């Protein structure tokens, strides 16, 4: 399972890439692998605000629907619409396939997320 440096991870297998007050959120390699081929992605609307732990949308394989939870609170600035037409990108390049760009409302939440070393053991399952 591929886990890369420089990202933060949640126990529910989302990743967060932070730049200043902004963050991009996607799902980890472990998450896409467990799900199998992704055939549908539901993204939120630009301007929606979420609290940490809210379902920001869903990713679905042929067989199963899984909610994706935002690991950070904030307002959605952009959504990656390219994924709606090509959901398989989440399988092919999970760390290149961000789902939403968020303006962080509470930067201190980042302290509760996991770095590569701390997240890796959660991918053992």
């Amino acid at each position: 399972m591929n886990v890369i440096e420089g990202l933060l991870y949640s126990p529910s297998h989302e990743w967060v890439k932070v730049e200043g007050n902004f963050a991009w959120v996607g799902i980890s390699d472990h998450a896409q692998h467990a799900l199998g081929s992704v055939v549908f992605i539901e993204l939120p609307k630009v301007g929606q605000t979420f609290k940490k732990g809210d379902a920001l949308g869903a990713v679905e394989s042929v067989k199963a629907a899984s909610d994706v939870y935002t690991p950070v609170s904030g307002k959605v600035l952009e959504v990656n619409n390219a994924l709606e037409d090509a959901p398989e990108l989440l399988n092919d390049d999970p760390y290149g396939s961000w789902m939403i760009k968020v303006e962080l409302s509470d930067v201190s939440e980042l302290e509760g997320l996991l770095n590569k070393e701390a997240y890796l053991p959660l991918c053992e399952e």
Partner: protein
Amino acid sequence: MKTTVLHDKHLALNAKMIEYAGFHMPVSYAGITEEHLAVRTGMGIFDVSHMGEFMIEGKDALPFVNNLVTNLILPDTTKVTYALMCDESGFVVDDLLVYVIKEDKILLVVNAGNIDKDFAWVVKQTEKYDVTARNISNDIAQIAIQGPLVKENIEKIVGTTGDDLSFMTYKTIPFEDGHVIFSRTGYTGEDGFEVYGKPEFISKMWDSAISMGVIPCGLGSRDTLRFEANLPLYGHEISESINPVEAGLNFAIKLDKENFIGKDALVSYKENPKRKVVGLELLERNIPRHGYAVYKDDQEIGMITTGYLLPQVTTPVACALVPIEHAAIGTELYVQIRQNKVLAKVRNRKFYTKKYNK
């Protein structure tokens, strides 16, 4: 958890495993889409050894089974009959296949998840008949080999061609030092065969098929294939609360038969239908799934029984149980998917044209 004789082979093939009906079963190997397409265009093999088998024996076997199930069972030892076992209220105990082995020996094939419930039900019904029922599920393994290329290749797997078998017929064939039941049946909408026999025989056939390049298929594609071909699944389109008339299974209900359990109730459902399992297509991209609520405007009226975004199909489709007044083709309904109500239209349930060898 129970396992089938092929369990180690599934693990060796790196299958994604799940618990299903108390068994540790493969849900997919290479992927549901790949397996679905293998069956539609080539050959796929399924381990269906978890299915239940009951042997009914005795002088009254035929009248007993005709009282037990909705379809007409003839003393024809080549025919396989799809039927339903209903209770007195006409709701479904299970759906099953009936193989008349001899006039006094009949094989019933039932769903894995219902084996214990079904066997108790069957035994209870034997009281007034000179028959015995044996649950032989643990002694019998089963594979399904399905797809358009199967007919040219089946001989290499089972040692006999199926050329003399048409859809829903069977024969008993020799294999090694014994026999197996070989039938032109399946649950995919495609031509193909199912084989029932001793676990070691089925295990050998599985190995031959895999070594020939037949694609191993799991429960995931079994479900997408059966749904696409409009074949019902117990617990979804039929259940203890959805009767077979509502499910559109009138072809398997013979109301002109003298009597059978649930007949009176089914007559009244047919005369005065209240609900129907309809096809739906979504007018925007999303995936309707089992249990999602269906609305007419703001009123919740029904639920999705099965739904998918099927491989190589761009429109999401589903079956839904709705009141008869909202069942007409073209009716606009909504499916509640998470926070959204997604517009859908009632359509027919023929998502795929079956390719049986009739």
